[in-house]
């Protein structure tokens, strides 16, 4: 017998799951990504590098800037270009905007309705209007940062290899400093709210992150030994899904906010660090549902860090100069932390700067096996115990804890 979960609501993109029952027991769970393929790697092949980040941004609207930045970094590494701290800080500010926009969307509009028992945030707003408004305020500020750095709220083309089309103004940065301070109170409240959720889903054994907080030159896992994805991560195709599945040394693993907090907490800002310590014990149990709490703590981190960056840049003034980019034959990998976890853009270029090889692996694809493992554990625990409606509700929540971004997950290629 197969129990079909209808297409998940309140997640980005289109996916569903099947629970396979044999002899009265849960045998298997299949996560089916039904979003059609979009062939992004094929799209970039033969393209001039200059246009590539703007196209790759279209992979996902919720984290378009993570895609642009990862793409730009892959290209810069292929050409041997290094950018100065100013450009790095500005990129970081953009990525922080994306964390705020995405985490706020996920926590307030997609997860909170589960907590309060509503089908959506719009209906939840009748009783919990204040909370919804707070979420929207955080989201709007995140988008303001994406506009400032990325060029517009969705799919801006301002992030370029070597720098930016336009640099933020002093007033823009002053606004960032003010707003990030003012919104901190809301983020702390989110931590209190999401700390109340019960644990569910699978317990994670392997965590993978980039070696810096928001991006890196390599990946790291529990042993903190830097590695390239090709050394430890393997992908394979599935007949029932447009997303491929990845394994870390042959086992399922987790990327995302929970992984970042557990492996990189020494890089956190003061208040975020304090909140992490307060909740450390629970987070360290490794239940994927604590990813929601981890995201709430990252809201605090993001606001504090945005304030720090704005202050640094205001103190020393913006220079606004791009680094010259000379195309050459090369190979480079961009590793970025998208809100949902590690994002990889890997390219080879020819001497004219055209893309000859491209491989993109997104966080949801990396988490695909872990989502299945989590669903399997929940289904086993609940089948025959809870009624089917409740079981399905809980399974949907389990998927949601990953904050999956399904559109993103479907176009991964090895050529």
């Amino acid at each position, binding site marked *: 017998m197969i129990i079909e979960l209808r297409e998940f*609501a*309140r997640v980005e993109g289109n996916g569903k799951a099947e629970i396979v029952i044999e002899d009265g027991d849960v045998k298997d769970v299949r996560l089916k990504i039904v979003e059609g393929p979009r062939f992004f790697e094929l799209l970039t092949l033969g393209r001039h590098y200059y246009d590539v980040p703007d196209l790759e941004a279209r992979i996902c609207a919720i984290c378009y800037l993570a895609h642009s930045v990862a793409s730009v970094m892959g290209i810069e590494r292929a050409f041997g270009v290094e950018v100065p701290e100013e450009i790095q800080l500005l990129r970081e500010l953009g990525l922080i905007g994306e964390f705020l926009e995405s985490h706020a*969307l996920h926590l307030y509009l997609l997860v909170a309705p589960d907590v309060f028992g509503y089908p*959506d945030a719009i209906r939840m707003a009748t009783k919990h209007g204040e909370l919804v408004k707070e979420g929207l305020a955080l989201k709007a500020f995140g988008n303001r940062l994406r506009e400032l750095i990325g060029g517009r709220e*969705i799919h801006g083309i301002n992030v370029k290899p070597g720098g930016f*089309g*336009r640099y933020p103004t002093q007033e823009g940065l002053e606004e960032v400093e003010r707003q990030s301070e003012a919104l901190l109170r809301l983020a702390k409240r989110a931590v209190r709210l999401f700390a109340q959720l019960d644990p569910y889903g699978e317990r994670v054994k392997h965590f993978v992150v980039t070696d810096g907080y928001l991006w890196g030159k390599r990946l790291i896992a529990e042993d903190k030994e830097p590695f390239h994805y090709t050394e430890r991560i393997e992908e394979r195709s599935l007949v029932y899904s447009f997303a491929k599945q990845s394994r870390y040394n042959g086992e399922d693993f987790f990327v995302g906010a929970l992984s970042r907090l557990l492996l990189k907490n020494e890089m956190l800002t003061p208040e975020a660090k304090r909140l992490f310590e307060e909740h450390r014990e629970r987070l360290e149990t490794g239940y994927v549902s604590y990813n929601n709490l981890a995201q709430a703590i990252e809201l605090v981190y993001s606001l504090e860090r945005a304030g720090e960056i704005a202050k640094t840049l205001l103190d020393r003034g913006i220079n606004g100069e791009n680094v010259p980019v000379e195309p050459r034959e090369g190979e480079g990998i961009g590793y970025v932390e998208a809100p949902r976890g590690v994002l990889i853009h890997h390219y080879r270029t020819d001497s004219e700067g055209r893309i000859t090889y491209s491989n993109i692996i997104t966080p949801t694809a990396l988490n695909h096996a872990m989502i299945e493992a989590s669903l399997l554990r929940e289904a086993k625990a609940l089948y025959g115990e809870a009624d089917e409606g409740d079981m399905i509700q809980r399974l949907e929540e389990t998927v949601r804890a990953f904050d999956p971004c399904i559109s993103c997950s479907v176009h991964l290629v090895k*050529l």
Partner: protein
Amino acid sequence: MMGKLKLGVFELTDCGGCALNMLFLYERLFDLLEFYEIGEFHMASSLKTENHYDVAVVTGTVSSHRDLELLKHARNHSNYLIALGTCATHGDVQASVELPIREKLKAVYGDEGNPMKALDSKPVVEYVAVDLAIPGCPYDKNELYQALMDIAKGIDPVRPDYPVCVECKLNEYECVLVKKDLPCLGPITLGGCNAVCIKSGLGCIGCRGPLPGEVNPASEYEILKGKGYDDDYIVRKFKTFARWEP
């Protein structure tokens, strides 16, 4: 006031941006909800009423059989259908990958055949008649807001009919095509985005698709060639968001 109109938002294969952009209306979303009731909006709600929609909004391309079924459902159950975003109106980036579907699948997924029934990506407008097409990758939020308000009040929505260049002039942005030799598609691209990319000092990449009517891609082609861009580069650029023949 009369009863509210039923709104359905349907997402086919895309980046999620056009659906997400509706949530970015923030408070104005609540203004819209004075006139509309959401019957289906999968990204935002677990509710599904599945009967009839006064207005259906469809985003994304038809890239699988599932998409096609969903599109037919939306069309058959709605009075007014809006194709929203360049995926839905012109096919966007995924439709520009020009191999046959089998070869594409093989390159990406290996030799598994086509068990999930993927199709070559095509815009919504190639499958069903639409009542309104709002392009943009993503579309401009104000344009959608205004259109939905107009529809609720029984007014025919305004459709922009001028190129991006007009908006550059209105904003007094320096022309990046002439002054910086950047490959800008502004002269032949439908305006309505307020020239947001040129605001960044960068060239328009044509995300709103071609300006309908008297547009002259041939002369744009010559200008770009004159600036040293090669054929392949220009043709790809023209074809990226809409299948545009120079």
